[in-house]
């Protein structure tokens, strides 16, 4: 029962962070702040969903794999964000 509560709370928070990421992506005025909103929110959203789902899994290995998916998304997200930011600076679409 407590574990169900854990899942409900964390997955719901994850949904909220995905919502925050989308709102930021749509509403922020310039590309760099949109990037900032996106990279923070979606990684956190996925992370909360992963942590929330952990008690639903049967094996330790599955849990480890799931956390690994999150780490992988964070790593590639961070690197992509750098490259995208570089691209935005080259195209001149930012206000310091």
């Amino acid at each position: 029962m407590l574990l169900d509560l854990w899942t409900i709370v964390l997955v719901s928070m994850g949904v909220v962070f995905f919502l925050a990421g989308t709102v930021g992506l749509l509403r922020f005025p310039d590309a760099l702040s949109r990037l900032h909103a996106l990279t923070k929110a979606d990684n956190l959203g996925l992370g909360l969903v992963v942590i929330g789902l952990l008690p639903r899994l049967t094996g330790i290995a599955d849990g480890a794999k799931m956390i690994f998916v999150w780490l992988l998304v964070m790593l590639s997200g961070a690197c992509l964000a750098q490259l995208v930011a570089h691209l935005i600076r080259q195209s001149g679409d930012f206000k310091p």
Partner: protein
Amino acid sequence: MTEFLLGSACAILVVVAVGLVRLLRGPGEADRMMAVQLLGTGSTAVMLIFGAVIRQPAVIDVALIVALLSAFAGLAFVRGISPNSGGGDE
């Protein structure tokens, strides 16, 4: 519990779909890239939730592949649209 998980999966999918407006509007290629990235992360989350619902641990492996290959496609995309990434053909 199943209802709750499926509901949150739906919610994430809808939220991410709204974010795809950036894919339509742009204005820059970077914005389109970001919308695709949001969709990649969102569909990974939905996939993991759905995998927990149908109790099929192999879905985590699919998520692993999606995470890896979307990083690859994203890198290729950034390289493809940047004007001077040293692609050799300029």
